[in-house]
């Protein structure tokens, strides 16, 4: 099979740029990236279909020489339709996100955040234990600005608390 180099390079460029955009935080940019990737994939299908030829319509005499392969075209059409629906859905989601939050950034998971903070505070409480003498009771009753604020970990902890 011979490969049309221009098409292959176009597909590669689209996929590369799309991947870059997908790594952004804003949902609209991610969407543009996905559309580029989708288009790159469609072009990849054209490459996969082999050399171009006549329209794949079999004439009355049954002559099939020089026809282009109809199957990748059918698949690309399906993929384009699916892509269209996806774009509409993601746009709706970006709009709803903007309505709710005033931005359309992809957000971190809330629970993950809690668990991450738990881990941090576990580390800091041990560090705190090590730097101070044994004292029982409530660590938050005192002014956080007092005493151990030269310890960056504890300052961190105070920040998390606030």
């Amino acid at each position, binding site marked *: *099979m011979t490969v049309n180099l221009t098409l292959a390079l176009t597909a590669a460029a689209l996929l590369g740029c799309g991947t870059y955009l*997908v790594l952004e935080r804003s*949902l609209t940019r*991610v969407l543009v990236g*996905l559309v580029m*990737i*989708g288009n790159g*994939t469609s072009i*990849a*299908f054209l*490459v*996969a*279909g082999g050399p171009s030829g006549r329209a794949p319509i079999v004439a009355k005499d049954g002559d099939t020489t020089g026809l282009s392969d109809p*199957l*990748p075209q059918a*698949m690309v059409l*399906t*993929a384009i339709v*699916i892509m269209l*629906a*996806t774009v509409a*859905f*993601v746009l709706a*989601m970006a709009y*709803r*996100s903007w309505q*709710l*939050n005033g931005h359309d950034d*992809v*957000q971190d*998971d*809330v*629970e*993950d955040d*809690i*668990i991450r*903070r*738990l881990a941090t*505070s*576990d580390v*800091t*409480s041990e560090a*705190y*234990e090590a730097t101070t003498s044994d004292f*029982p*009771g*409530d*660590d*938050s*009753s005192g002014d956080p600005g007092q005493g151990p604020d030269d310890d960056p970990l504890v300052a961190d*902890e105070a920040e*998390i608390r606030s």
Partner: protein
Amino acid sequence: MNALVPLPVLLPVLGAGASLALLHHPRIQRWLSLGVLSAVVVIAAVLLVEADRSGPQTVWIGAWPETLGIVLVADRLAALMLLVSAVVTLAVLAYSVGQGMTEDEEGAPISIYHPTFLVLVAGVANAFLAGDLFNLFVSFEMLLFASYVLLTLGGTAARIRAGTIYVLVNLLSSTLFLISIAVTYAATGTLTLAHLTQRLAELPDHVSLMIQLMLLTTFAIKAAVFPLSLWLPDSYPTAPAPVTAVFAGLLTKVGVYAILRVQTLLFPYSPLTDLLLCAALLTMIVGILGAIAQSDIKRMLSFTLVSHIGYLILGVALASRAGTAGTTFYVVHHITIQTALFLVLGLVERRAGSTALMRIGGLARIAPLLAVLFFVPAMNLAGIPPFSGFIGKVGLFQAAQADGGWLAWTLVGAGAVTSLLTLYAVAKTWAVAFWRTPLEAHEALEAIGADAAVPGHDTHARQHRGHVHTAQGTVSRTDIEEARRLEDDDAPDRDFHKLIEAGEDNRHSPLGMLVPAAALVAVSVALTVVAGPLYALGTRAADDLHDRTAYLTSVLTEEQP
């Protein structure tokens, strides 16, 4: 009997259309979708019997000549998966009808629920029946699109946040699937699985390996195999209970099914055992460690879901008949059990107002029926001896032991550890949510309320360095603060004790929710009772998959109608 094969896809799609047309008649809509799904259960059962008795049932849609047509195949594995998924979706639909999906959803276009659910069912059925790669892609898109809508139902902030991650991850995996389809077509000129079996083997090794890895990556994202599983626990728990239940039960298993199909049918000469075993190992261990860290039952279960995918991959990785049989049995077990647990959890959430461990307690005494319904599948999930979870794990361990490699033995050890840690995770849930009293839960929460007001020694609960110590153990303070602050639609900012005191707890679990959940738990117990014949069926399905001749003859001779 061949005429039955397209029906599990056709009926739900037609039903979805009809139920869209009946948007303003919710009652008819409900009965229509229940009727359609019941019919699918019957058809799937007939197909299974037929496939078991007289071999794979094959239909070339539209009688197109040669390689242009789309083929649907119901062999033993596909028919079995079809039957299980039909039973599970029927239970979930009945449950959501009982829940009256309308009431707790603010301004949600709820009449959309039934058509979307039916499209999801059609997509899942099509994925099981698909006989070519592109049809598989289309069915993935069908079920994914339905799942996008179901996951973001109502468009609340939490669901949009979770939905964004879910949609983007799945879009990427779909794109990767498309690219691998393009590559496969460029290399072989066909996408029908039966034709690919011959042509892929003729390709140079590196080309076929690349195609295999691309397909496996795609399916691993869907199946939530470890490095590609991180999207799952973030997105599933925010959906309404029945939606989470059907996602957890079915969607990941469709990915596992695709992996199993591709590995046995297309690439039997390249089992990639070591790679898949490592993936299975990491999936199990990382998943279950995540489950232990969680403070919400829904999220804990989502992590156990990920970790138990590891068992399924273990069976596939071994590439032996015993391994495949084990996976087949375990898939059936796990679909039922995971869905049942999430359904029961929906009832718990309704009864206690939350699934955050911080806020609930005492359910064993207050709602003994719920406690039993939770306890049985939870023990089953952990693999306690009489249950099907134990049988499935033993089957997989025996297959691994027959393999004999050191990695396989490591997997046996890891599987046992994962099973124990699952027991620990569900036991912790049991002790906190069901065993302690709501008052104890309330005190632990309350202790953190006024910082200075709690001197430390006078009450049961005492704070110390960011943790609150109660009679039951240590609870992290940030965790509690977070639990108090959370104000999403599903969980009002009150703990169970306050709800009871105010008399605002939901004493009444509607029968319409209770019966489907109980029925599914009963089915999961019944799997233990019929484990012998079921495992035998799994073994026959595995033989089919590894022999390939039955599948290939059926597809290739049906070709010329």
